[in-house]
């Protein structure tokens, strides 16, 4: 991969991180899953960089977070996020960026703004929430609450 691509991927990962400094709303009803501006950065990554590089930017960002840089909104970071409530959303980010990029590439004939809007909605909202909220066995939806907890629910 040439350095131009690497630097762009790093840049968009940093944009996602910088958006985390925008104060987030933690709704108690969402069980500690913050509603943040960071999802906007994820969509932007897909739209600007295209599906593959966009998803890579998200993965790079998550990697830096796991290396314990406190870049998730609310200043969270470190390996603990893997067991936190929002991990389902974090896992959904890479596919969200990928789908955003894919839709953006398909809509070349549309004006840029309209195409970006459609791409962001399909990628950011549809894919993101589909992975954040997982359908349960008996049809009702529930929040994906971390590996441990999910497996705990199955096992328990």
């Amino acid at each position, binding site marked *: 991969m040439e350095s131009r691509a*690497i630097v762009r991927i790093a*840049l968009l990962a940093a944009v996602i991180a910088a958006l985390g400094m925008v104060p987030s709303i933690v709704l*108690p009803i969402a069980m*500690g899953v913050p509603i943040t501006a960071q999802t906007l950065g994820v969509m932007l990554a897909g739209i600007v960089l295209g599906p593959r590089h966009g998803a890579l930017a998200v993965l790079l960002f998550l*990697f830096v977070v796991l290396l*314990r840089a406190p870049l998730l909104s609310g200043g969270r970071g*470190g390996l603990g996020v893997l*067991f936190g409530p929002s991990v389902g959303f974090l896992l959904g980010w890479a596919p969200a960026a990928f789908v955003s990029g894919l839709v953006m590439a398909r809509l070349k004939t549309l004006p840029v703004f309209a195409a970006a809007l459609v791409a962001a909605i399909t990628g950011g909202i549809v894919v993101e929430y589909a992975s954040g909220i997982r359908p349960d066995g008996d049809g009702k939806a529930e929040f994906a*609450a971390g590996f441990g907890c999910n497996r705990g*629910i199955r096992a328990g």
Partner: protein
Amino acid sequence: MMIDGLAPQTWLHRVPAGVKLVGLALLSVFLLPVGDWRILAGVLAMIAMVYAGFGRAGMARLSLLRPLLPLLVVVSGVQAAAGGWNAGGVVAMRLLAMLLLADLVSMTTTMSALMEALTPVFRLLRPLGVNPRKMALAVALVLRFVPVLMTRWRAREEAWKARSHRRIPPRLVAAFVADILQLADRVAEALDARGFDRSAADRHSPPL
């Protein structure tokens, strides 16, 4: 600004990062099938003792868990409703133990040590096109870009506010994105000029 580790050196700081990571993975595998609340309570007590051993700084870290309390209450409540109080307590305690353990590793390991511990993993991924050197560069770039981006955006914001009372329009964001993409390309050129990617050195400008 970026690092929120534990300031005083503790005995856990001296344990190699790789050992801590493997230990965390093993512990999570062992803790998952445990269904007895007494064992989990014992594990939690042990973790609490480690935290207490770090003194005041360690105990202060515990307060960072406060935003997760509602989640723990809801999850254990759902479990208790479905499978009795025992199941609810077990799930909450297991989650709490894993969170505390992961945090323990995070706060006693420096970023560079973690990166180094992961280098063998990247080497394994090499056939898939992962280059450890480029990976390290990318991580360093992200950390450096965050403050740069914030400063640049603030400068734009100030320039707008100095000229107008109106709200910052969305088109300022578009101009900003274009600006930082140019910045990224200049950084890439600078990297190649310094020989980061030899093969690309002459790709940016036509040869004389």
